[in-house]
């Protein structure tokens, strides 16, 4: 290992002695190549920190979900006011005869909808060529659905990975673009992948949001019969409320 390499390794692992620190600073201020390399690595540090922090946050969120699964869905900040409204509406109007009014469909949607978690990224991230999908998932996890939407679109165009449609639909639904979400989910249902069955659940919610209750019920029945355990209890409870 060269002296420069040793100094750099020790600098980033915070193990420079006082003498070494002096030497490091001297080289940094007198040797342009050394300075450039250190500045580049400082940027690598900032970037890897940002990604590593996102992963750590996801790790903590998964603990929270395990400890308090019912409450974890409400973590998305923009969803909170909607959930509050939903709770008040359900409490105040909590009778079956009013369930067909538009406001209650919205309330039911808000109660049951949470954008799907990213369950595909570990597979997709293994492919170094999928940078668009990778960036899309980072935006998605950070709840930046507008950015995620456009990245998922581009990623799907270049990779034709049908699972990306599932997340595109979820991003649209989170952005309140219900009609577009329905079209994307319908397209996703023309494929067969690990997430196709789950799309019936989100399509049902999109139909509910757009006031198409019969279609929502139909999708819920398909979803319940599909053998998918994800959101099964919620699907049954929602169908009961709509029947």
């Amino acid at each position, binding site marked *: 290992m060269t002296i420069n390499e040793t100094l750099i*390794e020790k600098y*980033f692992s915070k193990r420079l002695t006082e003498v070494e620190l002096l030497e490091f600073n001297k080289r940094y201020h007198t040797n342009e190549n050394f300075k450039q390399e250190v500045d580049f690595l400082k940027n*690598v540090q900032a*970037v890897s920190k*940002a990604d590593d922090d996102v992963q750590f946050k996801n790790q903590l969120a998964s603990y929270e979900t395990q400890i308090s699964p019912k409450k*974890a869905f409400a973590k998305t900040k923009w969803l909170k006011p909607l959930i509050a409204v939903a709770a008040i509406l359900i409490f105040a109007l909590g009778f079956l005869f009013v369930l067909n009014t538009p406001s209650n469909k919205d309330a039911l949607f808000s109660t049951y909808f949470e954008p799907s978690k990213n369950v595909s990224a570990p597979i997709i991230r293994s492919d*170094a060529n999928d940078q668009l999908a990778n960036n899309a998932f980072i935006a998605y996890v950070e709840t930046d659905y507008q950015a995620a939407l456009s990245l998922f679109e581009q990623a799907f165009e270049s990779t034709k990975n049908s699972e990306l449609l599932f997340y595109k639909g979820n991003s649209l639904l989170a952005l309140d673009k219900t009609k577009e979400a329905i079209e994307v989910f319908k397209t996703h249902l023309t494929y067969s992948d690990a997430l196709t069955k789950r799309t019936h659940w989100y399509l049902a919610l999109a139909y509910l949001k757009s006031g198409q209750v019969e279609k929502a019920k139909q999708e819920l029945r398909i979803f319940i019969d599909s053998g998918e355990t994800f959101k099964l209890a919620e699907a049954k409870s929602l169908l009961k409320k709509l029947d």
Partner: protein
Amino acid sequence: MEHHYVDALKNNDDTLIKELYGRHRAEFFGFSRKYRISEIDSADIYQEAFLAMRKHAISGKLNEVSCSFKTYLFGIGKYLIFDIHKAEASKSSYNANLHNTDSDYESITVDITQELTEEQKLLRHFFNQLGKSCQQMLTLSFYRGLTNEEIAKQYGYESEAVVRSQKSRCLKTLKNLIKTSPR
């Protein structure tokens, strides 16, 4: 501070971090309730406090701290709670009494997450194009501050030299990605 907890945060020891998260959670939620923080916001703050703890563990700051893990965690939490109240105070009347609720924990200042510069955002784009093992290698070296020898030992590489050459390959690939990208 308890060294094994600091090491757990630095080395991302999932089992121990999860245990710590569960151990102090209920008390922290009760603590933040005193400051009129909802349960959902408490979870957010609790997680932010853990993230800040980890940053301090990685930066070496926790090595100089003499209080316990819990005291420090709650101190950060208190700071974050105050920060929320200050932000809300700009929208409505500020209730200074809220800050007198608990004096058991000294508020500990943390840096609010710094935005990446435009140059760094661009670099992130290329960084994400690297294979997972390269991303991990560079993260361990430059963010977590592990030496080549520590990486070899903890992540099962044959030797320090293998880590060194792998890291050098990763950096070369990253630089090539930047060089060959259309401007």
